């Protein structure tokens, strides 16, 4: 590898007492890449991010960030990171602009430079008209965009986004995704955690699937789907009827079937052919849907569980 990875982890472990949050993961993130940690709540994604952000020392293993040691060079590394935390830490009493300029001060950025960057970044996250308003009345989506702008104020080499759209309504999420996609296009290295498979598919060049503190799969969204799922999925619902009895009747259709609380997923490369086969057997589902496989299906296949608990 010609270029040194921005993040280099080998056998990385994080323990809290007896609880092992991160259980020996290997990760390399390269410059310009958009990298994701996908997994359900409690998979160890945020603990990993906090170790990368140099606020949580690793319990075991090797971790190098920007070629430096996070335990000894914390301030030097953090000077070059942009962090968008999961939990809001904006100053509600200050204005939108002040939130950026005061934060720029933490990085030792001169006032005039900070003001110029703040104006530019507010333009970028589409908050320029709110520059002089206090933060408190802003919507959740606006606050998240402001937090993203704040993370960019030091022109970081590496941007860490912990669950960037959790808690936002669909429209606000799309606006955040669109901004992050623009960053990615500019060649900014992004590392994000998410439990939304659509977020991972849209934003990540490469991702790891995490479950119970371990990495269970790694690759591009497309390669993961190809390796761990069929091309298409047939979703069958049978009203309020118990689903277990139908599983036997579906045997032999597609490659395999998964039963969820509200529906049965039949994995098949040709979903329409599978649907036709279901009808031929005299089964009458209350709804039939053929769709392409997603990362959700990859996760279900690998762990037997869904990403977002219903």
């Amino acid at each position, binding site marked *: 590898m010609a270029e040194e990875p921005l993040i280099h982890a080998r056998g990385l472990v994080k323990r809290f007492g007896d609880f092992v949050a991160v259980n020996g993961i290997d990760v390399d993130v390269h410059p310009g890449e958009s990298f994701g940690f996908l997994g359900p709540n409690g998979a160890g994604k945020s603990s990993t991010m906090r170790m990368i952000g140099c606020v949580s020392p690793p319990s075991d293993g090797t971790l190098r960030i920007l070629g430096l040691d996070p335990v000894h060079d914390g*301030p*030097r590394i953090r000077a070059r990171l942009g*962090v968008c935390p999961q939990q809001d830490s904006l100053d509600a*009493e*200050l204005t939108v602009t002040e939130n950026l300029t*005061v934060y720029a001060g*933490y*990085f*030792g950025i001169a006032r005039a430079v900070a003001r110029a960057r703040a104006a530019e970044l507010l333009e970028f996250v589409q908050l320029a008209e709110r520059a002089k308003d206090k933060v408190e009345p802003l919507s959740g989506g606006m606050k998240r965009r402001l937090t993203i702008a704040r993370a960019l104020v030091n022109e970081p080499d590496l941007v860490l986004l912990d669950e960037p759209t959790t808690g936002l309504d669909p429209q606000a999420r799309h606006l955040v995704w669109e901004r992050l996609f623009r960053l990615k296009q500019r060649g900014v290295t992004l590392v994000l955690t998410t439990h939304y498979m659509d977020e991972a598919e849209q934003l990540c060049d490469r991702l790891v699937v995490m479950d119970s503190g371990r990495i269970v799969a790694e690759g591009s969204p497309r390669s993961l789907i190809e390796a761990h799922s069929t091309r298409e999925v047939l979703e069958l619902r049978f009203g309020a009827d118990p689903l277990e009895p139908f599983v036997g009747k579906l045997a032999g259709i597609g490659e395999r079937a998964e039963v969820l609380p509200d529906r049965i997923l039949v994995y098949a490369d040709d979903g329409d052919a599978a649907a036709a086969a279901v009808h031929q057997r005299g089964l009458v589902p209350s709804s039939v849907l053929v769709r392409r496989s997603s990362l959700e299906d990859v996760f279900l296949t690998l762990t037997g569980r869904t990403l977002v608990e219903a």
Partner: protein
Amino acid sequence: MTSPSPLPVFQHRWTLYLRTWRGSVFSSFLLPVMFLLGMGLSLGSYVDSRGTLGVPYVDYIAPGLLASTVFQIAIGEATWPILGSFSWVRTYHAMRASPLRPADMVGGEILYIWLRVATSAAGFLIVMALFGVLHSPLAVTTLLVALLLAVASAAPVLAYSASISTDNMFAILFRFAVIPMTLFAGVFFPVTQLPLVLRWLAYASPLWHGVELSRAATLGTATPWPWVWHVGYLAAWAVGGYALARLRFSRRLTD
């Protein structure tokens, strides 16, 4: 890019203060002046008629009220705003993602508290001068006493605020430390009036040492103990409190 320092932490607090400074003028300036008038002049006439203090009562309590005001401001700024920055606003978590270190956070808060007490103490000194209760040019040194008393009382409270999770714990601090100190640390009457046990508690409190140093400076009299002892005792609280606060901030922000 410069190396991390306490200045941006100070700037953060100062930016917030500029939004709310009007409210603080009452509590940190007008209120103590009202105390000075109310107690010094009214209660003072009774006390002075007995003539046991050797100086007019208003001259006696004015430096005490100055020290007590400094103490109140320092404690006030080291309690709710600090817990809020950990638990509610999460300011310190935001700072933690930057190059700033826990030492910069503690240092920045102390710088801000210093500016607050220095301006209040200066204002109070001017009022005292107008009332003619300053009897020595050494009175200007009360500004230095104010800075020392402020860090001696605020630094350990910064550590306390970094160690608690709810503001109910402040009730304990105020009930068992702040209020008793305000009443019994020599602000309103000499601690020699107190029973021995309470007198030793007054000696243990940083406030008493600040009160006596201020009083000696404005009256031009000698301190009860050699002044370096008072200064040394306050410095010990400041240094110990600072070290503890740094440790507690670091613990709270690392997992």
